[in-house]
């Protein structure tokens, strides 16, 4: 368990955490403000990646692809909100689950029809494709650092918007008590649409950023969606701060667990037993973490609802 490996894995964990934050931010706001369970949020992430592949094919420029794919993800998010989701806000959570599950099936399969079932790749922008020496004997890919940096920047921007601006105040108020905000004369419907579109765009952006280091394939949003739900539940639904800390926690615990669990178990178990138990426990860690958090704080670490 060398220091270099530990630092590399910590950075990888940060990168996963930042990515999860980009997805969880939209999810937690949509959930917190509108009380709407959107299982189809992961689909936006997948669409962002696929759209970037297409726009890259058309323009040959990663920057344009990133911009166009983010805008397209925003438009698709708004379209789905207007066509389907808007009718579901008043409904039971379970109705929302069923309908958004239907949307997942449709989009996952639609993606297979449009882009094919085989995984696609998005080339990394040349300028960022190398790696930088962080210390002696430790080179780290520039692109992953870019993901971390852009995620932190967006987190800072979101923090500013949510805590310092008028719309952010309305969003926070909406997450605490949507009915009261509406009674005070805020057009909650429009607020909902703005939040929804913005969340969809962030998820799409995350999809584009991660496309160069993952294969772009149908269903890639599903497992990320579950992780994002774990994040917002740990952080407390409706809380951006909770989503941020929850995401970093989940990213770090998951990545470091997968790298070091087997080694740690070797300290107390035989080598073969450790090889068997280690990976299983590593995969379980974030769920153990979630169960533990809920046991101690049944509404997450930073509950937004002031009940």
């Amino acid at each position: 368990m060398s220091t270099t490996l530990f630092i590399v894995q910590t950075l990888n964990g940060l990168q996963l955490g930042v990515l999860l934050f980009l997805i969880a931010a939209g999810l937690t706001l949509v959930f917190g403000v509108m009380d709407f369970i959107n299982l189809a949020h992961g689909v936006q992430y997948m669409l962002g990646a696929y759209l970037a592949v297409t726009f890259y094919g058309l323009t040959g420029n990663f920057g344009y692809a990133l911009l166009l794919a983010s805008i397209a993800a925003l438009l698709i998010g708004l379209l789905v909100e207007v066509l389907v989701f808007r009718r579901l806000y008043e409904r039971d959570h379970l109705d929302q689950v069923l309908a958004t599950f239907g949307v997942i099936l449709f989009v996952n399969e639609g993606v297979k029809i449009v882009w094919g079932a085989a995984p696609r790749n998005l080339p990394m922008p040349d300028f960022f494709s190398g790696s930088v020496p962080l210390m002696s004997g430790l080179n780290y890919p520039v692109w992953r650092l870019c993901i971390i940096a852009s995620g932190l920047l967006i987190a800072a921007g979101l923090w500013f918007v949510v805590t310092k601006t008028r719309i952010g105040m309305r969003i926070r108020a909406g997450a605490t008590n949507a009915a009261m905000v509406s009674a005070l004369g805020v057009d909650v419907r429009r607020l909902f649409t703005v939040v929804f579109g913005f969340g969809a765009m962030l998820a799409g952006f995350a999809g584009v950023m991660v496309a160069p280091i993952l294969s772009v394939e149908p269903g890639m949003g599903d497992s990320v969606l579950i992780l994002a739900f774990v994040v917002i539940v740990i952080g407390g639904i409706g809380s951006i701060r909770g989503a941020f800390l929850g995401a970093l926690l989940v990213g770090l615990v998951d990545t470091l667990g997968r790298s070091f669990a087997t080694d740690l178990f070797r300290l107390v178990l035989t080598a073969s037993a450790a090889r068997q138990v280690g990976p299983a426990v590593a995969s379980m860690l974030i769920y153990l973490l979630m169960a533990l958090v809920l046991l101690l704080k049944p509404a997450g670490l930073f509950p937004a609802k002031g009940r």
Partner: protein
Amino acid sequence: MAAPPIAPATRFAITLPLVLLVALALVPLLAHYLPGERYLIGLFARVMIFAIAAISLDLILGYGGLVSFGHAAFLGLGAYAVGILAEHGIADAVVVLPAALAVAALFALATGAIAMRTRGVYFIMITLAFGQMAYYTATSLSQYGGDDGMRLAARSVVLGHSLLADPRGFYYFVFAALVVVYLFCRMIVASRFGRVLRAARENPVRTETLGYNVHAFRLTAYVISGCICAIAGFLLANQNSFVSPAYMSWQRSGELIVMVILGGMGSLHGAVLGSLVYLLLEELLSGFTEHWKVIFGPLLVLVVLFARGGLIGLFGGGRRG
């Protein structure tokens, strides 16, 4: 004197389950005259197995208001009881089934006691967490197939008879299990226990104030539900002659929830209808096009938008609880 008129909803709540069960009972007889007899019998046996699992989920979801997103774990526990005991030479249902029930009951008791501390969405997520823990534990059981799962040499025997080896024998065994489970759950929901469970769903505080220990009632319902789902797992392992961690995946848990909501929750026969429609549509559409989900997905959305209370709502029988 004319008999007192029966409200359409009530009449429907009696005829629909009856029609469903009679139709399922007749499947092997009718399949005899159709091409692909074995295929049809297998398909409908699968429908009934999932109907049992969906009924078990409906018991806590529809009547208790407890949305378990980890119910597939019980399916897996039932299946792994079959697989692991078979590996050690025990294949008689008389031993395997009680073992499956005991394991499921213990798991439900332990996880339920913790999960009941949370409410609403947090309950959904904590049950998901326990489901995932069961899933990853199964993948680590390398002596029992690990990730790949394990093949069963033969189906379970019943008191030494290889009753389940014959497709029809297996079909009617599953059918009998479905009828028993359905009637058992009907009895539970009609009992005082079921009324307290529903009362706790509507207003836990008031129910508590009336002197009922809501926590104990819910936990009991959770354990019963887990045990019934383990029966479905026992049957599923036998039908496929195969056990794998995939039985416990969260997608499978999600599928069970979808079946219950699709059919109409809080009615028990809605769960049967939901699994029937879900699996038959899947079968039908996938024969029609490889991309059947493009049709199936929007159908689910339409059901939510236009058939409130699930499919049984379409018939005017949609009554929660």
